[in-house]
């Protein structure tokens, strides 16, 4: 049985169909990367997995439990086994870094302050943010916020980690740092991960399998080597990063030739 089972998942907002009969299975310990253009429903997929949205049809099951059918208390129990890393970190801005990471520990575990301190230090070390525990989120850069968000997500030792575009808006160096942190977390914690990203370099480093969402449908879900040579024109266009092709609904603006430098 797959740890995460997405079955015929469909979701629409008004007339706009965002996900249409998406099927994905993620096995325990596996790392799935979901690629796709903006607005193709990648975040909606994660929000359905977390139970933040209810599917129009189909379902998401975690360890066989159908998320949309769970009572609120049961849903919270399942959520304790999932760590969610938000695109813009979503840190509690009234709290310090320490309080953010300790939040789940204080709410759900009956442990002493010393144990909380030790666990927070451990989580911050794993993401390379040790010594920042007294800072407020406003004092952190974008990359630092994401890493504190990772630390908060792993504090309760979840089985599953979900990353929602962890590198969007970061410079290439910080993108590489975040990619390495995700790889470290994957190897050191042995968790099952789903990562949504536009960054192909880190996608191929992180992934055991890569899926591509296109106009609400899952075009492919296969190992990186197979994905690279998949002949589907949309996949090949996405990998080339080229504006010409079937990927865009509206035709792109014409490509201008660069001005010749006058000698």
């Amino acid at each position, binding site marked *: 049985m797959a740890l995460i089972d997405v079955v015929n998942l469909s979701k629409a907002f008004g007339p706009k169909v965002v996900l249409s009969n998406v099927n994905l299975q993620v096995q325990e310990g596996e790392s799935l990367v979901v690629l796709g253009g903006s607005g193709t429903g990648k975040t909606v997929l994660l929000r359905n997995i977390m139970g933040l949205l209810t599917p129009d049809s189909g379902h998401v099951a975690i360890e066989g439990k159908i998320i949309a059918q769970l009572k609120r208390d049961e849903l919270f129990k399942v959520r304790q086994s999932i760590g969610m890393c938000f695109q813009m970190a979503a840190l509690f*801005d009234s709290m310090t870094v320490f309080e953010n990471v300790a*939040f*789940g520990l204080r709410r759900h575990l009956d442990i002493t302050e010393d144990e909380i301190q030790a666990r927070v230090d451990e989580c911050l070390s794993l993401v390379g943010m040790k010594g920042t525990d007294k800072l407020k989120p406003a004092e952190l850069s974008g990359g630092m916020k994401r890493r504190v968000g990772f630390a908060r997500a792993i504090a309760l030792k979840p089985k599953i980690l979900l990353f929602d575009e962890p590198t969007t808006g970061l410079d290439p160096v910080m993108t590489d740092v975040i990619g390495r942190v995700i790889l470290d977390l994957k190897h050191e914690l042995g968790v099952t991960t789903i990562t949504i990203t536009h960054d192909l370099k880190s996608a191929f480093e992180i992934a055991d399998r890569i899926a591509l969402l296109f106009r609400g449908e899952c075009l492919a879900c296969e190992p990186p080597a197979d994905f690279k040579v998949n002949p589907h024109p949309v996949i090949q266009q996405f990998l080339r990063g080229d504006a010409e092709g079937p990927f865009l609904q509206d035709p792109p603006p014409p490509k201008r030739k660069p001005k010749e430098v006058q000698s």
Partner: protein
Amino acid sequence: MVLTFIDKTGATVLAALDTAGDFATLAGRTFAAIFKRPFDGKNLMNQFQAVGVHSLPVVILTSVAVSMVFAVQLAFGFRQFQAEGLAAQVEGLAIVRELGPVITGLMLSGRIGSAMAAELGTMQVTEQIDALECLATDPIHYLFVPRFLASIVVVPLLTVVSIYVGFWGGYLILVGVEGQSAFVYSHEFYKLLAFRDLRIALYKALVFGMIIALVGCWKGYRTQGGAEGVGNAPTSSVVTSSLWILISDFFLTKLLLV
């Protein structure tokens, strides 16, 4: 033409019922979450400070100003009939029964209701409320309940402060300016009042506290649309809660004075 009108009216009524149902559901969930665990004492104390201690100056200043201007009007009005002695009695009645709770309610809806809407609205659009959900924490329990409890305790307490300050505001005008006897003023202020009047004032303040917290949190929790939504939430919260404070004041007065 007629069909369009009926269609639009129907849509408006349905939207209004939908909004009322949403508010009632969240209010019900707040009541149900009060006794749930874990109890977050630190969070509650922070809210007591934000709602209570920080609201004290604004309640004192508005209560002094309103009671003074009311005393000026009463002194002027009763002088027309050579009945200046009644001014202190009516001042007492008005401050305890109406001005104390209503002024406190309206000022706090502007100060704390709007702050709650802005804070929760910002949390909503920056996905902090989703983060709470993902950390297996009920936002109603974590965000609504402490604000609700702080509000229903603090608004009655600040109403008592407002009444006390109102007494001295009237004293300043009627004794200090109009030259009435301090002893007579102190005696006359309470002459028309019974303990029931203070009880009514506290009941009203309790209901106003509920309205302020629930409307402020509800408007913030339902914020959509980024910066514009966050900007609209406090305004909408103040207008809605002020309206409901005044409407409920009428019905509470009719009900409790019977």
